[in-house]
């Protein structure tokens, strides 16, 4: 923790590290030393082991049931949800992490994806394209909307851009809510049919969590692979260059506007994809409030907490925050209720009364002791 304590003293008055010439050197040296600590050819890397763990999880007979009997939580089903939110977070990471643009409206694209998928598949509409086509259209549709939003607003800087994305998010949420003829308002569209795959019957999608688990896991892994390659590609490096210094990047011949636009489009498309999966998994588009500003903030917290611009960090952040809210909190709640310590019916001994407090303290403490995030990207710097 030495670094965390020293830094504030050294630059306590300074919000911009780069102004101090001397401070720049150790920072740079640290980056160099951090590079590739793990032998690249090793098959034992975390990148291989963790996917393997997740691939194996449902195959181990009785594991899910054993966990269920211990925790009363259907772990496999919750993991599916975490995979979906991971896709959303990876999408947000493209804009915020790689390109350094603060985006507070990712939930809007998530919602657009969910509603496009809903409209194209539910029985009350005449389209009924089926899952795969709808998902593809949702992904592209959300991406296109991302371009439409980003094109006129890219010249905005920092927090002004953040506010535009926030505003867009709210406009989308209210539009979904108010355009009742199209979106069924707060009632939500339902039921969304299950995906169609050969050899898998409609019923088994619903009974067996594993089909959806593998579908989302496969998509997540594919996206992770894509992002890993994209990170090192011309475009990925251009994103980072623009984040670090837009002027210098432009001087090197990078078309900053186009680079930012592509980041926006990709992030919106991934959010749309996640939205489509989310709605299909829940067989309903839920309601407009599932796509509100809170959702955007929490996703942003996930990626900052994990480490901006780092794929591993993003996944860890989602696991911690979404995992806390959907897995850990219900388990703790159950334990406290069963333990019977609250015989006197005190409101201070009810777990749900403390939920926001614990969630907030988690955010504060992690940022306090790991201000760069839990698994910072090698190149990440104050942006």
């Amino acid at each position, binding site marked *: 923790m030495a670094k965390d304590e020293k*830094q*504030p003293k050294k*630059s*306590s*008055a*300074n*919000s*911009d*590290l*780069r*102004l101090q010439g001397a401070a720049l050197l150790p920072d740079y040296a640290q980056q160099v030393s951090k590079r590739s600590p793990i032998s690249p050819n090793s098959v034992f890397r975390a990148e291989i082991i963790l996917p393997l763990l997740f691939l194996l999880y449902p195959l181990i007979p009785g594991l899910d049931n054993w966990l269920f009997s211990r925790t009363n939580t259907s772990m496999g089903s919750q993991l599916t949800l975490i995979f979906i939110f991971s896709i959303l977070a990876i999408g947000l990471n493209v804009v*915020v992490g790689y390109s350094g643009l603060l985006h507070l409206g990712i939930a809007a694209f998530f919602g657009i994806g969910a509603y496009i998928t809903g409209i194209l598949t539910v029985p009350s509409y005449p389209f009924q394209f089926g899952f795969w086509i709808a998902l593809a259209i949702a992904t592209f549709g959300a991406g296109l909307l991302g371009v439409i939003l980003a094109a*006129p*607003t890219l010249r*905005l*800087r*920092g*927090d*002004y851009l*953040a*506010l*535009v994305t*926030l*505003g*867009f998010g*709210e*406009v989308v949420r*209210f*539009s979904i809510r*108010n355009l009742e003829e199209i979106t069924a308002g707060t009632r939500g569209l339902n039921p969304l049919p299950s995906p169609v795959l050969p050899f898998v019957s409609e019923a088994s999608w619903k009974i067996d969590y594993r089909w959806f688990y593998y579908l989302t896991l496969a998509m997540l892994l594919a996206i992770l692979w894509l992002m890993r390659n994209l990170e090192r590609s011309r475009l990925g490096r251009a994103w980072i260059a623009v984040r670090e210094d837009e*002027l210098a990047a432009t001087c090197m011949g990078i078309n900053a506007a186009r680079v930012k636009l592509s980041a926006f489009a990709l992030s919106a498309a991934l959010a749309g994809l996640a939205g489509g999966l989310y709605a299909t998994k829940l067989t309903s588009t839920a309601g407009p409030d599932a796509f509100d*500003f809170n959702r955007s*903030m929490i996703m*942003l*917290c996930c990626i*900052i*907490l994990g480490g*901006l611009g780092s794929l591993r960090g993003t996944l860890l952040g989602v696991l911690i925050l979404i995992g806390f809210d959907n897995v850990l909190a219900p388990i703790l709640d159950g334990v406290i209720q069963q333990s019977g310590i609250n015989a006197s019916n005190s*409101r*201070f001994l009810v777990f749900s*009364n403390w*939920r*926001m*407090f614990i*969630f*907030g*303290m*988690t*955010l*504060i403490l*992690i*940022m*306090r002791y790991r*201000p*760069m*995030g839990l698994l910072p990207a090698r190149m*990440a*710097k*104050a*942006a």
Partner: protein
Amino acid sequence: MASSNSLPLFSNRKSKFENRKSKMWETFLQHCLIGLTNGSLFALIALGYTMVYGIIELVNFAHGDLFMLGCFLAFTLLAWLGLQGAGPVWTLVGIGLILIIVPIFCGSLNVAVDRIVYRPLRGAPKLAPLVSAIGVSFVMMNVGLFWGGAADLNFPDLISQNLSNHNLLGNSPIQFTPKDLMVIATTVPIMIVLTLFVQFTKLGKAMRATAQNPVAAQLMGINVDRVIGATFAIGGGLAGAASVIYALYINTISFQMGFQNGLYAFTAAVLGGIGKIPGAVLGGLVIGLVRALGSGYIGEKWTSPLIFMILIVILVFRPTGLLGAQTREKV
């Protein structure tokens, strides 16, 4: 006979038309008045946002929840002082007391939060304190839940209770009650004093210097940490003052009220040009007006999207807000 009959009929119709026209104007003015009153409340909250942003570039999402805690403290004090149903003199004294205690509480709380949560993160990436601020917001919301319970609370209408709800504009159809006057009579002086303070006092100058360049300010012998602390204190104090006025004016408080008010205040701050004190005031007034006119003429359910659509359009044409300077961001 026919003509004598038609004449009054005609004049009657004409006066009816004029009547309707003047009525339209009255309604319009009434909406504007409501908008400006609400807008000055938004502005007061936005000032706290914008001052903190101006000095450490932190979007303090916990500001709205600080405001909420201020409302709860005012509510507790009110019961404690026994103001409900009290006579006019004691009520005025009581309101005065609350208006002193709550801002002090909010200011100190804000400074404490800065000390404990934000100060260790001064050298960290810009988005780290943002997450902490969101965390603080959740914690404060939970405190509010324990403090005031989950349901909406009615904040007794102390002003109308003593001064009655009569119209200050005499028999004019436009309603301007002592409550409206109270909002304007307290927010406007606060804003003027704040502007003068930042413009002319030593501490105000130190604040502006720190906002411009913290390193240079430090080299000039300014104790930057103290200046930042003072900014948090003033920002919190403004939130406290706003919370008392809001509670007396709107009369409903709940543990979730901080979120929406904070969102509007943030919007107001950015709309006016974040970091600019007159900008926050202007932004607040614009949002108040748009809200009132929107719900008066377009429809309540489209009011919020309308505010944000106008915001997007304004920012597309004025990328640094209404009063923001067209300067390049520091690199």
